[in-house]
């Protein structure tokens, strides 16, 4: 099986401070990986680096995605290549309706792939279809991007966008934070429904509870900028029970 993404000895820093200190990770098509770890271990940095956030500088290592050097691509090119980040804190964009925003996103991707822009009718149909997947109100879809959305609505809106863009690699950055149990279930079910055999997911989370719904194949623990432990789903349960201290201070 060909690897979807391979991260080799990745080092990255922000404002001169090294956060990632040699990450190695392989995700194959169809796999769900969970990355867990205490606060400040570098989980969000890893997701931001993978999508090319300009605040971070890669100082060493490489990332091969679909056989190509991912780090050479601009953020939008990475998006066109099928990488999606569900943001931990989705930003509000006043004045830009979700409809216009998504239309720009879809058509930018199509253009990058040499396809013609989607017709308005097809686009609206797609919006309706995908909205239903995460119970996103049609009112929300007509509002400005994330403006006045509750925490839960913002997260559902992230998954809605994921549904629209049909990524190959989805990175869910603490998608469970700030969600009550019902919202968590809706979001997780949405993610599961979008799963196809060739698509992969990296779930970044503190807690086991999201993993009750989105079942990981492999669980990693990130600590102090490195992956310090990798195992099957049982690791998440163990972390839930024992916390992170035993990882931080190995006996």
């Amino acid at each position, binding site marked *: 099986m060909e690897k979807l993404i391979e991260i080799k000895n990745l080092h990255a820093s*922000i*404002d001169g401070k090294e956060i990632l200190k040699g990450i190695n990770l392989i995700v194959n098509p169809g796999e769900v990986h969970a990355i867990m770890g205490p606060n400040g271990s570098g989980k969000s940095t890893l997701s931001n680096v993978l*999508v*090319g*956030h*300009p*605040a971070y500088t890669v100082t060493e290592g490489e990332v091969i995605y679909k056989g190509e050097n991912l780090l050479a691509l*601009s*953020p*939008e090119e*990475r*998006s*066109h290549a099928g990488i*999606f*980040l569900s*943001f931990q804190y*989705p*930003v509000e*964009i*006043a*004045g*830009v*309706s979700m409809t*216009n*925003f*998504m239309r*720009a*996103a879809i058509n*930018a*991707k199509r253009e*990058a792939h040499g396809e013609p822009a989607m017709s308005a009718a097809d686009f609206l149909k797609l919006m309706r279809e995908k909205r239903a997947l995460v119970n996103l109100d049609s009112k929300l879809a007509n509002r*400005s*991007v994330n403006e006045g959305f509750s925490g839960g609505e913002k997260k559902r809106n992230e998954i809605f*966008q994921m549904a629209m*863009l049909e990524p190959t690699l989805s990175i869910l950055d603490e998608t469970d934070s700030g969600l009550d149990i019902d919202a968590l279930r809706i979001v997780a079910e949405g993610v599961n429904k979008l799963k196809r055999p060739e698509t992969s997911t990296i779930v970044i989370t503190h807690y086991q509870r999201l993993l009750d719904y989105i079942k990981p194949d492999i669980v990693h623990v990130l600590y102090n900028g490195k992956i310090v432990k990798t195992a099957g789903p049982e690791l998440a349960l163990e972390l839930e029970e024992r916390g992170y201290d035993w990882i931080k201070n190995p006996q």
Partner: protein
Amino acid sequence: MKKKNNNIFKKIADKAYEYGFFSNVNTDIIESGLNEDVIRLISDKKGEPEWMLEFRLQAYRYWQTLKMPEWAHLKIPPIDYQAISYYADPTKKSKDNKNKEIDPELMKTFEKLGIPLEERLALSGTAVDAVMDSVSVKTTFKEELKEKGIIFCSMSEAIHEYPDLVKKYLGSVVNYRDNFFAALNSAVFSDGSFVYIPKGVRCPMELSTYFRINAANTGQFERTLIVADDNSYVSYLEGCTAPMRDENQLHAAIVEIIVCENAEVKYSTVQNWYPGNAEGEGGVYNFVTKRGDCRGNNSKLSWTQVETGSAITWKYPSCILRGDNSQGEFYSVAVTNNYQQADTGTKMIHLGRNTRSTIISKGISAGKSQNSYRGLVRVSKNADNARNYSQCDSLLLGSQCGAHTFPYMDIHNDNAVIEHEATTSKISEEQLFYCNQRGIGTEEAIGLIVNGYAKEVLNKLPMEFAIEAQKLLSVSLEGSVG
């Protein structure tokens, strides 16, 4: 991150100004300089009656006593008024050939600007008066409009054909004593449009004037006069462009509008004069006095402007709400980039009872530009139940530009209700990155955000203009990110 950001916002620069070409047409330009003889010469070239010459000379004599105003938040380099030519006629032809063929090069110029002057090619439902430098080249659909009693022609023609109307209304809203540039314009104005909508007539098409500066070292001093008689309606559009030049060019216009009882006038501007290059060299100085007088009861005047061009803009389209229940509106988007400066806004003068005014101003600043909103709301003693709502928003791109708001209120009636809201926001990197992550490139993202921000105003423009204006906003900010 900082570095990247600066980069992002620094690049606002050098996008080609699409309308910057020069047309090689045979142009009759008078020598530069300004004195009474020049004014007599202009008047003579236009074959004007004596009263018009007197009007000009009176204004000129007054202008000589004035100094250029300095209260605006603008840095205006000294202007040598003797170095400007005050009259350039690109339609030069011999006297006996008047009203014959138009130079095909002129036709081509306007076609290139998207303003075909052949009626069969024209935008549907829009009549155009095309003004280049000091002269109206052609006015389309004049005959069709005439059938309804509507007069739409160049100012020069109106002075000859409709002297009574011109005498009655010219200078009645903007007196030559109004300000420095109004006095200058009154002395040397060349062409512009004249519109008269008779009682009870709803103008069946959009009327528009397209102003083009072509000749070098000239100033354009246009004069527009619109009269909407009782129970009439007209929507009027104005567009402007100029070639790219290293030196500055002066454009000092006056627009006067008279709105009678139950009449409504909508005046829309898409101003795209050459803004100068990325280093701030060249560009048009746009010093304009626009004012409407809602004389009749229940009259309504609405100004909508999209200002993207000009090196310096100084303009305050205003409404005198004289009639009872009259309404004034001002919707504005002003974009400044590179070294552009804009000081623009409105005046709403409430004189009648139950008068209402609305001001929505959206400033967008990028590069090293300075963008100011300046507005006055005045409610006189007798203006019972006056209402005003003002909203002034500023959007900043980058950290080297400035946005300023100068709202003035002068309220002499206790039952006036005045609301003022103002916001300042910045396009954040996080917003742009969010767009990028969804596959939207940075420039397109800025276009989306800016158009979203300006939507309230763009929605007020007639359809075709709105689409143009949207494109223009994106283009004006192109290169503002990298």
